[in-house]
């Protein structure tokens, strides 16, 4: 709290309590501070996890796991150390735990188009996980479908270029692309990629 005397009035600036202060009050049993701390922590944890995982429902599950871990581990926080590394350590642990069990099960749950689009931007760990599933799903396509998908979606060629290269009509290429994507979606959705 900063108090400044001016000519006719006293202006009081209330500074926001830091995460460290909130945690100390939480340890003393203050429920309001705890709620505030958990709200702030969930935002930080969500940002941390969603940068490494694109499936939003799984992100939310991990954020909730992190909040439960904060609840269990709050006695291990010491005010002489910053709060964020403590929180990120828990978030890292919960995320690793989630990925470990996903690896064991051989899946990460249902994957949608967004995963296909964002996989290239993900971190190495998650990229490997999704990469395995894409490989499996790709194996379900026939050779012609694979070739068309690679040319149009990975090499960035137009439908016309692809059609002339493969000696097909444009509409046939469009149908093939549509069917291949539909098949991939179906494979991910039904969990055949496991």
């Amino acid at each position, binding site marked *: 709290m900063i108090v400044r005397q001016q000519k006719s009035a006293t202006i009081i600036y209330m500074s926001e309590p830091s995460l460290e202060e909130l945690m100390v009050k939480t340890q003393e049993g203050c429920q309001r501070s705890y709620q505030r701390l958990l709200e702030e922590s969930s935002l930080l944890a969500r940002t941390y996890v969603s940068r490494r995982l694109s499936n939003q429902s799984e992100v939310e599950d991990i954020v909730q796991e992190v909040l439960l871990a904060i609840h269990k*581990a709050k006695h291990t926080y010491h005010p002489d150390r910053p709060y964020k590394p403590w929180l990120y350590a828990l978030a890292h642990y919960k995320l690793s735990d989630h990925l470990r069990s996903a690896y064991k099960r051989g899946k990460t749950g249902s994957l949608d188009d967004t995963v296909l689009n964002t996989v290239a931007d993900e971190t190495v760990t998650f990229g490997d996980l999704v990469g395995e599933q894409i490989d499996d799903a790709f194996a379900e396509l026939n050779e012609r479908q694979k070739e068309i998908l690679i040319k149009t979606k990975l090499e960035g060629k137009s439908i016309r270029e692809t059609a002339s290269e493969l000696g097909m009509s444009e509409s046939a290429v469009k149908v093939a692309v549509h069917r291949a994507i539909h098949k991939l979606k179906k494979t991910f959705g039904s969990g055949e990629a496991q």
Partner: protein
Amino acid sequence: MKTDSLIESLSKENIPVRRAMHPMIAFGGWLAFITAYIAAYLGFIELRPDLESKLSNNEYLWEIGACLATIIGAAFAASRHAYPDLAMKKYLWIYPVIPLHLFLILILMQVTRAINMGEFDMAHGMECAMAMCMLTILPVTGLYIVLLRGFFIDAAHASFFAALAAVMTAYLSLRLGEATDNVSHIFIWHTVPLIILVIVLTYAGKRLLRKRS
């Protein structure tokens, strides 16, 4: 359950908590306990009679020094694993691993020399291996108490460091008490059980800690 309602229910459950002891106090407390433990053991079986002359032997001094440094480094790393942020510190593993490598190199040098000179003899008793097991129990329990009072995020490393510190304590106690320097005896009935005990305790500890996390 939605995150907002989880936050609300968790905050309603909040009660004052007793802060876990400071990591340095936990570490210092374990070291003090171990010092008393080794002193009590040596008081019971007596120090080796040739200790004074052994203290002028460089090889013995290096071995004991490396062993002691491993104990301190491993206990330091283990006690830090009870606190999530401290367990994430980079290079924590260096403190025990460097002296452990020095220790293993010294032992291997002794074994190689003994084999070359034809002094390596396999016929020895089992008592030392049993004593190693018995002497490990209390130190490892002490470190697990420290770990279980905290919140560990890396059960595998925590149990490895705890096992290493405890087993090395047993090794040190025996080397200070037993008046033998026969290389084959030290290797077969001290070093090999040490390695086996560390592996077994690490595995068992990891399972125990994972169950509790």
